[in-house]
């Protein structure tokens, strides 16, 4: 094949990236240009802070999208990995004096490993039953947090551990790098043979099996990878906020990530980032009616699923994942 093959491959990758008449590529460029320059044009630190949280939730949303949008394995309990990563990293730092960056990576690895372990029972169930099963995961962790209160701090949570850095810019760029790495990783996976395989698993497991795909192996693998990414995001989030509570493990957290992905577009690459940023901003601008926030999101979620299930971005993939197929 030689160089012509390589050139063709490069062109194909470009085509995929720029699908939708280049609009997708242009918006990707704009999105990253905006994100990379945030500390320069942000009017105040509060704004930067929202963007840091937005970046971390983008990473969280990407991890959920990888599992649900691409592989078709529904998770209603992704807070397990996010909150789990947060607790793990904080405990490592507070009790074992592990430096925050290392603690974040270790927590990601822990969450990845628990993703692999939890992926195994998840092989047995599909669709609604998988949703119910995953819904239980954070509840178990929550129980542990409440029972072993001396270590986990019960409802009060944990504080008094190290942050990543006192500087907002450092925090911001660290979160941006994490987002960029996660995004590139997802893009590489989705455009590789892996991407084709996991979409095959999503669309028709039995057929995937019969064309020679070891379905269980890929399902467990993606569970682990998704857990790893979500764990990194959660751990980073904990070191940024400098105090955590069991709210990170609450059902609201699992629902929030779902809303973010649905807003941006299930099974799209930029969708989750867009959705996570929009919802994070709303979350902060609607602080004064915090009791109503979840209700507003829920109504928006129903409206989007009803009117535009492929998400709000104009170039979202036309084929929408349907459960139970």
């Amino acid at each position, binding site marked *: 094949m030689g160089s012509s093959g390589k050139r063709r491959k490069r062109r194909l990758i470009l085509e995929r990236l720029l699908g939708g008449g280049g609009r997708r590529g242009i918006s990707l460029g704009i999105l990253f240009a905006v994100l990379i320059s945030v500390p320069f044009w942000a009017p105040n630190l509060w704004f930067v802070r929202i963007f840091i949280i937005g970046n971390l939730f983008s990473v969280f949303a990407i991890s959920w999208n990888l599992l649900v949008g691409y592989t078709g394995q529904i998770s209603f309990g992704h807070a397990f990995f996010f909150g789990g990563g947060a607790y793990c990293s904080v405990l490592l730092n507070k009790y074992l004096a592990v430096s925050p960056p290392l603690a974040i990576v270790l927590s990601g690895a822990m969450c990845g490993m628990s993703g692999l372990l939890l992926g195994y029972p998840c092989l047995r169930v599909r669709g609604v039953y998988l949703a119910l099963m995953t819904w239980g995961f954070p509840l178990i962790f929550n129980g542990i947090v409440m029972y072993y209160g001396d270590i986990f701090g019960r409802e009060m949570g944990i504080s008094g551990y190290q942050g990543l850095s006192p500087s907002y810019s450092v925090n911001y760029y660290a979160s941006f790098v994490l987002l960029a790495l996660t995004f590139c990783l997802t893009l590489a996976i989705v455009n590789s043979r892996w991407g084709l395989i996991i*979409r095959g698993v999503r669309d028709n497991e039995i057929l995937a099996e019969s064309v*020679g795909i070891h379905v269980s192996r890929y399902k467990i693998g993606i569970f682990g990878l998704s857990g790893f990414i979500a764990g990194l995001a959660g751990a980073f989030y904990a070191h940024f906020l400098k105090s955590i509570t069991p709210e990170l493990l609450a059902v609201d957290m699992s629902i929030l990530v779902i809303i973010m992905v649905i807003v941006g577009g299930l099974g799209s690459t930029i969708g989750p980032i867009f959705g996570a940023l929009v919802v994070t901003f709303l979350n902060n601008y609607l602080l004064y009616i915090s009791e109503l926030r979840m209700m507003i999101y829920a109504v928006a979620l129903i409206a989007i699923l009803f009117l535009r299930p492929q998400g709000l971005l104009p170039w979202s993939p036309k084929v929408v994942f349907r459960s139970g197929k």
Partner: protein
Amino acid sequence: MAFLEVNNLSKRFGGMLAVDRVSFQVARGEVVGLIGPNGAGKTTLFNLLTGFLSKDSGKVIFKERDITRIKPYQTTSMGFFRTFQLTASFAGMTVFENVKIATLSKTRGWESDRKTKESIELAGLQECENLVPGQLSHGDLKRLEVARALATSPELLLLDEPFSGLSISEIKSLSQVIKNLQARGITLVIIEHVLRELMPLADRVVVLNFGKKLAEGTPESIVRDEKVIEAYLGKRWNYAP
């Protein structure tokens, strides 16, 4: 030694013996028809052969290797592939991707793209490469199954009712595609109810009834077999080769 050898295969669903001590052999390059009334155990037999169901007893030997305990995902690398009774496809992927995914167990990189193109052309689907299955006609979906099957480079193909739901002209063109497969040296086992099309294709026919093998022989001898006429064909069936 036979190419595919099925020995005393049995499968029980609760109180019902779905497949009851079935044995038959398939030689390399042969086309074997598998017929019988609804519920005779034909599809169950396919599911047993490809590992989608576990076998209660019996043995399967393919190319002198014992594949009794094979897993479904291992079938393509062994060199055989089955299609499904109801057309199955990956709804969220283009025709090209639908076929490409089947090449992945044996080829990589540009080799898989080449194999994909080739399989799509052999099945006559070049025009539809970038469509999704939802945009295809029923006949084209059947062709997609053939293309996907070819993409796995099979030596043995198990086709489950390839002609069901097709119009007469679609049946004619698909049966031409099947003849081409045969010409390429692919061994075929075909479950089919459209006997008028199956009989000219098949070298040999195996008849199942209530999970048991009722008869086996050339198409000519099968249509004259009293037991087969009684159980499946009916008195008024006349077959003119």
